[in-house]
């Protein structure tokens, strides 16, 4: 295996010299434009001139000959490999212990692009007319994980005590240690990430049989749900909800679409019961969603009603709701008497009861971080609403200690010297284990510790052995999706840097040195219910392995006693503040810190990149006397943390959202290599095992200022709420008037019944261009198109702002990463962005998400101003960009009302000149030009995909089928909010959607005639809360 690894990496050490320079350049601030080319010092202008002259020499072109390109074709090609075409393979991406079924596109044996597996029974089954073309959603994390394969910073050989070693050394060590391991099994421990892999379970049984003790640690786990349902039903379970059957959905402080392992499926189901006319609930019906949460999540942003509430108050809230529905004693919490909350609970309870009365169905979902009691209460309410078996199923779980208990036990044993051998399978406990355990120092007390990981990270440097781990796209494996379906992980490429998988390491430890394929295959063939191995590999899952719902009976819940803050009001004094830990949209729990795509993908709602922060509500910020972008010192039971504050509208009063996953000190060249090159702050420092999900009693003291780099507010946010910050619909000058034109919204009632007798139609102001007799006021006869007319529709009603489209686009179209300092300068390159607008009051706003890519205007303003005709219209109505013709006047950009054009201000691909980074060329899509500095670029509707499908259809002597061509963003979208197709076909889905009365053109009254149109967002508010 390792022999196939690249041979160049020995020279790394020689090259390592200028790493510091690179780091310095990356982190110095604020004159960003100088960063990339100048030495930091700005003291002496002329000395600087000299310096940057020198650097410009490096950065500059330099006269060289064209490259010679060698072609080395295969003499005997396998039947399925046609040069220049792609193959796709089913696989699975495991995050937080649950698998997301994937289809990975590979180009000549190199994985390039990742989509969901449409064939998989869990994420893929069934389509309705809005989500056609059979695609399944994919999370941004899974989609970006392909970049990790080609990460030049991955570890390339085992280390022992910090010194380089070979795999043979490690194998020898295992061989010598084998008998010792066998002898005292009790002193051998395995610390694993949460995993649902049946093969690992198999190996685990074998090892535990030999007395080995097994521990698990996952910073973001679903233990609470298991515990809570055990409380409610007497056995460990997990809840599997069916949103497509739910008329009313209540989410208690949870992110059920992106963070939840079943999020992709939930999003799809939610969309099904959401369609304003013709949903899975029946004609003219659509679900209504309530979200009670402390911090804005995708759930809250698309909920019809959102109540910002501290996470710790969810418990009293839930019991109050329970009381309101099935009678019983209201908890005597002060905040429940606040008018807003009162009304909310009353209306909510009424709604739920009405739905039940009318034979509808509802479901209450408790968030991952909520305490077991809340989960139990949710189960109780669901039971009362008769949700069981309809909108929620309960699946059996094995009974095991929670991750916190598990790792605490391990640490105490380590400190007690009862651990002789410790095998850490992935994960990074030194970085993310609860702070009070101090895993790092405990690790020092273990004689033999082995850390299997893809990077030499914080944990690797403390263990006696570090073993490179094969990326999940490089090795065999398996996992279960949330419904229990056994999903196969097949490798796309040999391990680039050598490396073994977790199962291979375990089998080494167990003493029988089997390959991953042997292990998984044996397991499937023995326990797969006689499934055909080859078919399972091909489909990506073992047929009929989904878990059956388990029969449950509700038990009486113990009385829950509430803490003073839970009984208090919603406003809190400094010192008793609540801290809630969130996953990061950039790094999840920190594991993606070195993934530049994710780091530069803006957060769902703050739109901040390359950072993590503490979210503070405007009112709270005022109380604490801190502004946006000011550093704060956060104190949680004795531990202190310096972190930058982001004033987030809609953040619950008294609650501070602390985003995890920052401050890595050994992540790699992107995510930080030392304490002074970190990205963000290590917020795990204050996270203790006693309050793993949220803590209370926090104190905040203001510090000096900091600078975030966001993709939406591109200037110093400290200018404050007053001047156009956050684009509030109300009070924000210049935004309020134009919002109705930009984002159209309508209430379901008005949409169905119409206003004043006539049906509601989103498309008024395009009529501005027509006179009553339908003539067009244009000066000349406007162009008409024969043949294909490509068009796109984006449904604002179902965009959950998961960023999947952005990452998919980045991976499909070779979009460069520009770095934090350039994003501050408003030079990010994403071809599709998700605009976020707030409406309402800063403390309780509503959010509107609007994905914007090139609108492909038929009367494109950009085209007529290009002096050299570098952007012109194709016969199919695409607004083509001819990179090689572009001179770079940037006039097209100035004249684009949507500002979707992106200019290569600097050479974003300079890094490839460095030998260390050459491996990253492999992730580039060969079908798409890599743009040079000085040229303009923008969304092409994935023209390369269009052409490939046209060629295919032509070879097969047939016409294109509607839905055959899909854009990368469309494939990634879990709710099918993006639909692409041919407007020339009257019956194509996109034509149907653009004929819909919800459909409107963005800034349509400019008569740019965009091919991309938007479906107005239909909200379904509760009249009682109107």
């Amino acid at each position: 295996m390792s022999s196939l690894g690249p041979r160049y990496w020995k020279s790394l050490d020689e090259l390592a010299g200028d790493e510091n320079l690179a780091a310095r350049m990356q982190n110095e601030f604020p004159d960003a434009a100088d960063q990339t080319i100048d030495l930091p010092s700005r003291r002496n202008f002329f000395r600087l001139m000299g310096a940057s002259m020198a650097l410009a020499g490096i950065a500059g072109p330099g006269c060289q000959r064209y490259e010679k390109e060698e072609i080395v074709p295969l003499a005997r090609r396998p039947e399925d490999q046609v040069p220049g075409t792609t193959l796709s393979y089913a696989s699975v991406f495991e995050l937080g212990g649950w698998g997301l079924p994937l289809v990975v596109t590979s180009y000549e044996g190199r994985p390039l692009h990742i989509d969901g597996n449409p064939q998989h029974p869990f994420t893929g089954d069934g389509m309705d007319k809005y989500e056609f073309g059979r695609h399944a959603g994919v999370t941004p994390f899974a989609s970006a994980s392909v970049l990790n394969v080609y990460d030049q910073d991955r570890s390339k050989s085992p280390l022992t005590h910090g010194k380089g070693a070979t795999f043979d050394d490690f194998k020898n060590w295992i061989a010598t240690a084998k008998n010792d391991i066998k002898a005292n099994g009790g002193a051998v421990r395995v610390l694993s990430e949460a995993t649902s892999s049946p093969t690992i379970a198999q190996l685990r049984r074998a090892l535990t049989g030999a007395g080995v003790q097994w521990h698990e640690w996952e910073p973001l786990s679903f233990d609470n749900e298991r515990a809570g349902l055990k409380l409610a039903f007497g056995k460990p379970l997990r809840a599997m909800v069916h949103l497509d059957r739910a008329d009313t959905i209540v989410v208690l402080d949870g992110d059920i679409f992106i963070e939840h392992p079943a999020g992709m499926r939930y999003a799809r189901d939610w969309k099904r019961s959401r369609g304003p006319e013709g949903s899975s609930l029946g004609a003219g019906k659509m679900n209504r969603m309530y979200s009670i949460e402390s911090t804005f999540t995708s759930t809250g942003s698309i909920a019809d009603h959102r109540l910002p509430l501290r996470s710790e108050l969810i418990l009293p809230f839930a019991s109050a709701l329970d009381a309101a529905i099935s009678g019983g004693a209201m908890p005597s919490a002060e905040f429940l008497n606040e008018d807003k909350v009162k009304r909310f609970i009353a209306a909510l309870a009424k709604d739920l009861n009405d739905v039940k009365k009318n034979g509808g169905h509802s479901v209450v979902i408790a968030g991952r971080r909520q305490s077991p009691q809340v989960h139990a209460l949710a189960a109780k309410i669901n039971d009362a609403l008769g949700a069981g078996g309809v909108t929620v199923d309960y699946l059996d779980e094995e009974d095991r200690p929670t991750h916190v208990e598990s790792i605490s036990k391990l640490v105490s044993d380590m400190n007690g010297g009862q651990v002789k051998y410790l095998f850490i399978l992935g994960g990074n406990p030194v970085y993310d284990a609860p702070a009070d355990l101090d895993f790092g120092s405990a690790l020092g007390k273990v004689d033999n510790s082995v850390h299997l990981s893809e990077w030499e990270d914080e944990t690797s440097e403390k263990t006696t052995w570090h073993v490179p781990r094969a990326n999940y796209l490089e090795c065999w494996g398996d996992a279960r999706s949330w419904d229990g379906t056994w999903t196969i992980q097949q490798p796309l490429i040999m391990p680039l840097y050598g490396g073994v998988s977790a199962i291979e390491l375990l089998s080494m430890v167990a003493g029988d040195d089997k390959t991953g394929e042997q292990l998984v295959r044996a397991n499937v063939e023995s326990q797969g219910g006689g499934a055909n191995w080859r078919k399972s590999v091909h489909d990506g899952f073992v047929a009929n392995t989904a878990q059956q719902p388990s029969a449950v009976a509700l038990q009486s819940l113990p009385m829950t006693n509430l803490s003073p803050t839970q009984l208090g009001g919603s406003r809190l004094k400094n010192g008793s503040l609540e801290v809630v830990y969130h996953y990061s949209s950039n790094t999840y729990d920190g594991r993606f810190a070195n993934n530049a795509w994710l780091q530069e993908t803006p957060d769902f709602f703050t739109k901040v990149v390359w950072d993590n922060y503490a979210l503070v509500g405007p009112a709270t910020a005022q109380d604490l006397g801190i502004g946006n972008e000011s550093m704060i010192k956060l104190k949680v039971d004795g531990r202190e943390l310096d972190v930058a504050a982001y004033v987030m509208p809609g953040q619950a009063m008294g609650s501070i959202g602390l985003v995890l996953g920052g401050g890595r000190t050994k992540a790699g060249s992107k995510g930080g290599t030392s304490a002074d090159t970190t990205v963000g702050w290590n917020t795990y420092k204050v996270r203790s095992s006693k309050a793993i999900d949220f803590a209370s009693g926090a104190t905040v003291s203001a510090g000096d200022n900091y600078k975030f780099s966001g993709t939406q507010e591109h200037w110093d946010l400290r200018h404050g709420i007053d001047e156009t910050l956050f684009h509030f619909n109300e009070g924000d000058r210049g935004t309020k008037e134009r919002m109705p034109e930009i984002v159209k919204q309508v209430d379901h009632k008005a949409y169905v019944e119409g206003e004043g007798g006539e049906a509601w139609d989103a498309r008024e102001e395009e009529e501005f261009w027509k006179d009553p007799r339908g003539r067009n006021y244009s000066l000349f006869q406007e162009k008409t198109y024969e043949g294909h007319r490509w068009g796109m529709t984006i449904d604002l009603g179902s965009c959950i702002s998961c960023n999947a489209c952005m990452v998919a686009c980045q991976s499909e179209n070779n979009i460069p990463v520009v770095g934090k300092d350039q994003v501050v300068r408003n030079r990010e390159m994403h071809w599709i962005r998700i605009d976020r607008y707030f409406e309402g009051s800063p403390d309780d706003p509503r959010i509107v998400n609007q994905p914007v890519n090139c609108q492909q205007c038929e009367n494109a303003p950009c085209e007529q101003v290009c002096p050299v005709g570098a952007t012109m219209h194709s016969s199919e109505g695409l607004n083509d960009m001819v990179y090689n013709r572009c001179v770079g006047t940037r006039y097209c950009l100035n004249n684009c009302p949507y500002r979707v054009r992106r200019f290569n201000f600097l050479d974003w691909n300079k890094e490839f000149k460095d030998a260390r980074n050459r491996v990253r060329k492999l992730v580039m899509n060969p079908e798409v030009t890599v743009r040079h500095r000085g040229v303009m670029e923008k969304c092409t509707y994935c023209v390369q995909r269009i052409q490939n499908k046209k060629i295919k259809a032509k070879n097969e002597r047939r016409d294109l089928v509607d839905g055959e061509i899909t854009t990368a963003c469309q494939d990634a979208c879990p709710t099918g909010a993006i639909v692409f197709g041919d407007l020339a076909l009257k019956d194509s889905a996109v034509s149907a959607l653009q004929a819909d009365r919800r459909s409107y053109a963005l800034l349509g009254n400019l008569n740019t005639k965009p091919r991309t149109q938007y479906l107005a967002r239909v909200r379904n508010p509760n009249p009682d809360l109107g």
Partner: protein
Amino acid sequence: MSTEATAAAHGTGDARAAFREITHDIAWVAENPKVPKAWYGALGVGLLLLSIGGYCIYHVVMTGIGVWGNNNSVGWAWDITNFVWWIGIGHAGTLISAILYLMRQGWRTSINRAAEAMTIFAVMCAGIFPIIHTGRPWFAWWMIPHPNDMHMWPQFRSPLMWDVFAISTYATTSILFWYMGMVPDLATFRDRSKSKIRQLVYGVLALGWRGSARQWHRYERAYLILAGLSTPLVLSVHSVVSFDFATSLNPGWHTTIFPPYFVAGAIFSGFAMVMTLMIPARYLFNLKHIIKEEHIEAMCKVTLATGMMVGFSYSVEFFIAWYSGNEFEQFTFLNRASGPFWWAWLSMVSCNVLIPQFFWFKKCRTNPWIIIILCIFINIGMWFERFVIIATSLTRQWLPSTWSYYVPTKYDVGVFVGTIGLFLTLFTLFMRFLPSVAIAEVKNTLPEAHAGKEH
């Protein structure tokens, strides 16, 4: 020579003494062996700034536009601001030399040569920006129609193409016009030259001019027609420049008033610049009796008038924005005055509308110091006008999500400073080595030019 000439002038009533005096005083600027220190100072400063600019341009071309502050919302910033500013400055030259000539304004003869020179140098400075502001300047020549293997041609619907033609025509015309006017005076230099080199150089440049009446006849015709052609040209050029903005979609740019507004502004700033240059010059090379008080005063009046036009245009813009009832338009102008760039807007208004009002007072029109200071303010104000138009509009476009801010880098400043250096260098060299005043024309305006004719 000088003593005897003056003697001749004052001693005997010789009419030709006046001509001699003119010839001598103007030619002496170029012939005087001891050059004023200030001249060397100016040249030194010019060259220094020029070298800074040269480095910055090298850096921009080699590293990319990213070294400037421009971004994905603000495609143009200082680059085009400077371009429009310089072009505007150029316009006064053509105006003085052509339009005033057509209007038979005798006083123009004292300043038209220098003003034309200013035009040419300003256009040279302006011309730098459209080229280096492109992402790939080495392909800027693609904007010139030329046959090529791929049969690709420029796209003539783009105002940038109009610019290419307008600016190049303008530059060519100005240079030819300037040179043609200079030939008789070069002949004068030739005939006064002592050294061989001067004789050769001026001799070649003078094309063997010998002031024959038949030649003067055609010469005057041609000159008149060139003046006639330059007049619509100068108006068209800044209109075309204004089309860069007026033909776009952007609120704050998409304005029909731009052409007249830009032309007025151009003349405004141009006159200010002429005065900024000529007032020191007339002291430095003591041309006080040639560039007279009343000439300066006349220019002040023109400046005042054009300043009022500019102010009027500002108010019209706001009125139309309000009258249009279009919220995007209204916001844009509200934002100009009260948005993040309020300071730019304020300095624009105060420099361009308030400052010129001083010229109502004769004292301000006659005191050179006051004039210079006011003129410098006006030039600053006109720079800000272009900056306000470009920056405020681009930072607050249609979709609030794309709103941004603009901060210049030292390379923005450096390139601008560099063009100022180029301008200063060329102008100092011109003053020293070429007839800085139209000798023949000045003579023509003297009463002695009609001596001995019977009426």
